[in-house]
Each structure stands twice: as C-alpha cells, then as structure tokens.
C-alpha cells in the first residue's frame, strides 16, 4: 500500500499542510505535483527538525516615525527605504524581531551534505518553512495581544526585501541584544548565523489596513521560480 496516497495536483493541495507546501515550493516544484518519495522525505525531515532544532525568538517594541516617502525611524534607528516606508505608512510603533532555529539545524544540514545530499537539500527547505511556521504561530499570539491595546499588525518585513538594505541587520541585532539572548549573530558580510534565522520589523497601527499577506508577493522579481 502506498503510504502517501497522493496522485495529481488536486488531492495533493488539500492533503498538504502549509509548511509542507512551502517546503515543496522552496525545492523548486513550483506548481508541479511533488513525487511521493520527496514528500515522504519532507515529512521525515520535519520530524527530525522538530526533535533537534530549538527555535528561539526575541522581540522589542519601539516607537516609529516616518518622514516622507523613504525614511523611517524605529527606536532611533534611521532606515532609508521606499518599500519599508510604504509598508509602515500610518504606523506609530514597530516590533523588531530576531528568530533562529539554532545551530542544530545547521549541524544536521552539514552532516547530511556529507552522507546524503538529497536529504541536506530537503532539510534546507524544511528548515526555512519550519522557521516561517514558527514565526506565523508566534505572530498570531502577538496580533491578539496587540489588538487588546488597540493595534493592528502589518506583514513582517525583513532586511533584504525591496530596497530595505541588508546591512541594517547588524543594527537590529544590536538593538535586540540577540547574540546574548538567543544566540543570533552575524558574519562580517551581514549574513545571519546560525543560517536558519530571520530578522524583521512589523508595523503597528491603530487602523486595520487590508494588505497582502507576506513578503513574497511584494517582491519585484516576478519571474522567480520560487514565487508563491
């Protein structure tokens, strides 16, 4: 008997949970049906990650000011970015956050790159999806508590999205004291370490603004093979 009774596109999309769909997308399947073997591997790797990885998050809420079309100030940090300004329009405060799956995920990926490359690649995708899922769940809680204070959340916006320069990553990490608090650091070239990590800002406004869901759709690179 087939363990994964998935045949064709329709059945698959209903049977797959959100993170599986995301992982499969990261693996470059686009809108194609995923094969059973890969799908089984994806499930296995998620289980492995759940046991090994210790996701951690640190966040702080800062006052926010926008100046014109391309300047935002969050807790004294000045950021020049049109896309961020657009995203933060009408916000009074912003949540700054850093999150990481920890070194364990990196160690596992490194280990499988020596013994089983297919698993390493699948883990890369699953780890990214796992971290997103973790953040989504955390954000639900945050949205609820902010609602009680009268604030609505904007989508998460990370350095590297649009013209939000990746070098701001360092300042965000410092403001959060993330190295000490969750072990999230950065290389000299502004890459987050451990690699499965995220920094982001979330605008808080008094008004609910209907907006697109996440970063992917806001990106200008419409021919991306990993696009949602």
């Amino acid at each position, binding site marked *: 008997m087939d363990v994964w009774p998935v045949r064709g596109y329709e059945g698959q999309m209903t049977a797959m949970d959100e993170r599986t769909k995301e992982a499969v997308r990261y*693996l470059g399947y686009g809108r194609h049906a*995923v094969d059973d073997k*890969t799908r089984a591997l994806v499930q296995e790797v998620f289980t492995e990650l759940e046991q090994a990885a210790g996701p951690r998050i640190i966040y702080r809420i800062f006052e926010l000011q926008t100046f014109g079309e391309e300047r935002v100030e969050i807790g004294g940090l000045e950021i020049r970015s049109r896309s961020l300004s657009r995203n933060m329009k009408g916000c009074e405060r912003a949540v700054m956050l850093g999150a990481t799956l920890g*070194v364990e995920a990196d160690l596992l990926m490194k280990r499988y790159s020596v013994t089983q*490359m297919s698993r390493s690649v699948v883990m*890369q995708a699953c780890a990214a999806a796992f971290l997103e899922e973790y953040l989504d769940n955390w954000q639900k809680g945050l949205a609820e508590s902010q609602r009680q204070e009268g604030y609505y959340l904007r989508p998460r916006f990370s350095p590297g999205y649009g013209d939000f320069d990746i070098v701001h990553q360092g300042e965000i990490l410092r403001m959060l004291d993330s*190295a*000490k608090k969750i*072990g999230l*650091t950065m290389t000299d070239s502004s890459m987050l370490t451990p690699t499965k990590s995220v920094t982001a800002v979330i605008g808080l406004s008094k008004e609910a603004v209907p907006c697109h869901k996440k970063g992917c759709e806001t990106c200008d690179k419409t021919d991306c093979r990993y696009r949602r």
Partner: protein
Amino acid sequence: MILERLGKELIYFDGGTGTLLQEKGMRPGELPEIWNLTHTEEMVDIHRQYFEAGSDIVLTNTFGANALKFHSTEYELEDIVAAAVVNVKEGAWLGVHDGREVYAGLDVGPTGKLLKPMGDLSFEEAYEAFREVVQYGEEAGADLIHIETMSDTYEVKAAVLAAKENTKLPVFATMIFDEKGKLLTGGDVASVVALLEGLRVDALGINCGLGPEQMIPILKEIMKYTSVPVIVKPNAGLPKQRGGEVYYDVLPEEFGEIMRKIVELGASLAGGCCGTSPDYIRALVRKTKELKNLDKRCMPPKEHTIVSSYGKAVFLGEEPRIIGERINPTGKKKFKEALKNHDIDYILREGISQQDAGAHILDVNVGLPDIDEPKLMQEVVTELQSVSSLPLQIDTVDVKALEAAMRVYNGKPMVNSVNGKQESMDAVFPLIQRYGGVVVGLTLDEAGIPDTAEGRAEIAGRIIKEAEKYGIQKKDIVIDVLAMTISSDPKGAGTTLDALRLVRERYGVCTVLGVSNISFGLPYRPAVNSNFYTMAMQAGLSAGIINPMSEDMMRSYYSFCALMDYDANCERYIEKYGNQAAAFVSGKQAEITLKSAIEKGLKEEARYAAYELVKIQAPLEIINEQMIPALDTVGKGFEKGTVFLPQLLMSADAAKLAFAVLKDELAKYGDTQQKKEKIVLATVKGDIHDIGKNIVKVLLENYSFDVIDLGKDVDPETIVEKVIEEDVKLAGLSALMTTTVVSMEETIKLLRKKRPDCKVMVGGAVLNQEYADMIGADFYGKDAMQSVYYAQKLLKEEM
C-alpha cells in the same frame, strides 16, 4: 588573595550596571565602555555603591571591550581597560568602610560572533581578541579575570586559554543556560563543567538569562558534577516589556530570599546580573550573612569520569561505552588512500556511520608515514566536530599532533594515549594539565608489556601517581591493560581479564581495551572478538574500542546491557532486534536494474544491483552502460522540468553508493582507473552558505570529476594557491548574496593574474548571466546540471 578565600567563605559579587548607567544618562546605542574615560565620576560612583552594598568583587565596565565588538576611532582599547580597572579601585577606596579585602574583577564578555564552522570567526582570532584584553587587564592591576555570559563552549575555551596562557591571574568563567539546562549552542551542564574543570578555571557557574528561581535546578545539576567553587549571578527575574521599556519581575527582597536558598544549595560566590542594583546586593547580603556553615564551602571532589563534545557529556564507569575504532588507517587500504588523497569526506562518513551504528565516542587516528600529522589531525578533528556530536578520542603517538588537536577540540577530549615510560608521561601529562582531557594509560613501560596481571596493575599505579604531580585526578585516567593475541600467548586473554579486575578493584579507575587484538592471526575473528568483548565487560571494562559496524560486536554489547540491567525494560535491545525477522525478509532486494535504481533514486537497491552486477561485468562497462545513461536521463529530466532537485540528488546519492561498490572492485585490478580531471570548488570569502556548491560537487563527482572542495568562506589566495598547486583547469565559485559577490570578483581577478588558463564557472542565488559577465566569469551555471555540462564540454571533450 582571593584564591585563599575561595570555597572557604561566601563571596559577594556586584550586580548589573546597565540600568544604573541609563539612570546616569547613558543613551541607547552608546558604547558603555567609553564611559570609563568620559564619565569617570559616574562610573566610580556606581562601583562605590556596590562596595557599600557589600560586594567583595566588583567587575570592571569592560563587558564588550574586545577588538571584535568594540569599534571606536576615538578611544584605544588599552586606555579603556586601564581606566576601567582604576575606576573600580577608586570605587573600593570610597565605598569600603569596614576594611575588608575586595577585588577588581576584569569583566570579559563574549565577542558577539559565532565561531567556525557555523559562524565566520576562527578559534585563534577569538583567542587573540581575548588575549589582548586580559593582558591589558593584568597590566592595569585587575585582581582576577571574570569571563561571563558565554553561550558557546568553544568561545569560552578560547577565552579561558587566553587568560591562563597570558596572565597569572585567577580565572572565573560563567555561562548562560536556558530553562532546560542547555546552552544556546546546545551544550548540557555536565559537558560545560567537564570542559571548564579540564581547563582548570578557579571557579565556574551560571549568570544571566534566567532569574534566581529558574537557576535553582541548573545549580543543583552543576553541584552534582563540579569540584570547584560555584558562582551564581541571576537576573532580577525574567524580562517583561511595558510600553517600550524592559523591566524585570523580581524585587530586591524576593531576590535576596531566593538567593539564600541558592547559597544553601552550595553556591560559593553570589551576585546579580541584568536588572539588579545595589539594593539587590544589599538584600542578598542581609539574607545570607547569618547563614551557618558558610566557612565550609569547600567542594567535595566528584569522581565522575566525563568526556564531552560541544553538545554532550559521556560518562564512563557505569554502563559500558563504545569507542568506535574505524577512523584509523591501520590495515585499511581504502582509508590510507583517503588520507593520501586528502579525502576528508571519506573520514567524516566513517565517523557518521559509526555514530549511527551506536558508538558513544569516536577514536581518531590519522597517522601515516610521510604525512603532516599535526596539520591533518587538527583538520580532521575540526571537521568531525562539525558533523558529529560525539566526543572524540585523539589517538596519536605524535605529541605535536596531539597538542594541535587538543587545542582546537571543542570539549574535553579523550586522549589515546600515555604509557608507563617516563618519556611518554613527561610529554603527555603537561598537555592534559593545560587543555583538560581523560587520558588512556597503557600498561607498558621501558621493559615492555608485563605478562602478569600484577605487573600491568603496577604500571597503572605508577601512571596514576605520576599524573598527580600535574594535578591530574584519578577520574581523568582510564587504564588500558592491553589485549594480546591468544594465537601467540595462550594465557593472553586470562591475563588481560585478571588485570582488568585488578585495576578496577585496586585503583577504582575506568578502563578501556582495544578488544579485537585478541584474535589476531586466527580465522573467523568476529566469533572470538565478540565473546571476549562480553567477558571483558563482565570483568569491568568501561569502554571497548571496537568496530560498531560489526554486528557480532553490537550483538554482544546490546545483550550485555540487557542482561546486566543497563537497558531499562530491554528497550534498546527490543528496538534493535525486535524487527529482526522482518529485516531478513526485506533483505532480499527486489529485482531491479542498476540503471533503474539510480533513475528512481533507490539507494539500497542501487548498491545491491551494483554488487550483483560486478560479479559478471567489468566495472568500467557498468559505469558506461548503466550508470552514466541513468544519470543522463535524470539530468535531462531536470533540465526539462520533469525531475526536481530532490529527485536529481536522490539519484546522485544512489549512484554514489553504487560507485563505492565498483571502486572496491576497480581497486582489486590495481590502478586501472581512468585519469580524472580536477576541479576546484569553493564558496567565496565571507560567504557561509555552501549548499549550492555542495550540490554541484555531488553531481560532478558522479560524472567522474576529481573535485577538490575547499569549503566555505575561502580566501581568494587559498583558491588560487590550490589551482596552481594541483594544476587545475576549472574552478567553480559560489556566492549567495550581493555582499559576497565582491569576493567572487576579487577571486576571479586574482586567478586571471596568477593563472590565466584556468576557467571559472560561478553560481549562486543573486547571480545571473549579466552579473557573471560583469565580474568576469567564463561561465554562469544557472543550476547544478549546467555546471556539469560545462565541465564536460571543457575538460572531457578536450582530451
């Protein structure tokens, strides 16, 4: 002297400074260390308040004062550190009214960077940064070095070594644990204690991260293992956020109350961390100074024999442990070959497969004539600890190689070995004293191996006694009474077993044994080995050095553990053998061709098919008729978009296993392998994302290229040097982000200058054809298969 008081009385630390600095007007984003020079009065006043509150040790305001974290164009690190020490002494002069002896502790915090291999900071760079600050501190008159808030065992090792090797000051070290008793980098309490005690810190403990209540379980755990005085410095509870402000939820009275419990549990040095103030220290002093038995803080010595890796501790002495012996060239043609060809991946796979098979510790021996053993040993240890969480046993007779490996080892290693010869002990014990470790003592001396149990036990006694001179405790010595083959000495096994029992009884030390020597020269060795293994465990063997890939040995091991109640409810035994009958059935592989197995990405089937096929067909024919066509089919499918990356790589993994089978066969015919074309691959300087490069590597290897993988974050110079040294015609470079494409361009420029005939192919997330042209690459591989096609076109068609 602080050292004379340690463990004999309760010593009080200071508390946090952050809040006090803010109250005195420090703005967010300012570097607090600069205040030592610009706001001397305020700094002195903060220190004074702590001395008045009762602190015996006040820390300098130098938490972030290291070259990696402190970047100022105006102020010199040396001046900052010097002023910081003076400020504490001033504070003492103003704040101590009862004439008690107090101390300025040089505060050393983490670099804020992650060490290699997960980050980009090398161990030696971290060491240098710490060396600088501790030397300044000692020159300025600090009384002790306090390394704190560390969350990485590797970084704390660099800091402690820097302090011990460059100053004469006492060294304290405390780390951040989370509520589960783990470091952010995964280490547990026992592994941290083993490491720090091995490095001979004068006191160790826990600070920051948690409030006093949450620290209690961790303190209890620390007390179980440590023999040195313990420091506890909690935050003022857990952080809460109100509005934009962060505050802590435990007030001074409550803090003092919980700290009293902590002192009663055995902490010898107590203070506060984030959110605490002089009021907290006052409360702490008030609640604890009346406690009885404060003068009996001496830590009873603990007898656990512990080796550790970055992530876990392995205890010897109770349940028997397995030391995997496979990383060793002795008698292994393929392993020797791998060492000569610098095939590190082969060695890593030997390690990982032993871990998967159930090993608890991995023995590492890379000794071959004509090999730079110190360099190779250091490299293999570094690489192994990035793919395996098992502690390592460094196995070498080359003292330089031993030291090189011990220095970079992330944890408390096992060392194989020292023996009863004076020369051996003179060379090895100083290294154990310096880096920590559990050392294997072989019971042989200048006169050889005694042929009686008593003779061997005597040598063991001498080794233990000599070790005492270096302060090496008995718990850090494990004795190997040596197994001699029964084919030349019929009483050999009996003597060894007697010696095992004798050594355990007489000295109470742990034991190891290279078990398989016993059967040397006999047919069907596994039968003798596995039975002798059981007998040795019965005689008190703590850890057998065995081949965990041998089912006979593992059967003995699991059976012994089940029989002797080391395996609760026989759980591990059942897990291992519960499906035995079923496994035999599925062992019969379905009939499937090698070509089809590779196309479908079926690893075991591919291995089996290759194994069967090689009995009737020549390896090169199999490669050309089955494997290459299969890989081509999959590759084409990938290009067309009908096969996806995971499937492509499953096929690659399957092909790799089949190749391994064929390689063995080819080796039998001697050197009939075709000459392979060399390709250098590297992820460029500054870039730590190497998955793309690794994918390309696997595929190129499948297509019979000889890939020289230089890893990630590789200097342009290293890449060029390798290209020249190996006379390589094609280099592949990967980069993930715009910030690192710069180093890609730099590498290409240098290659063009030094080796214009070497072509360069590039790939990575931010690259495209335009970008690749701009930085001067010869080829842009938009996916992994494209790189293979390019390499084939360039290197194979030329021939």
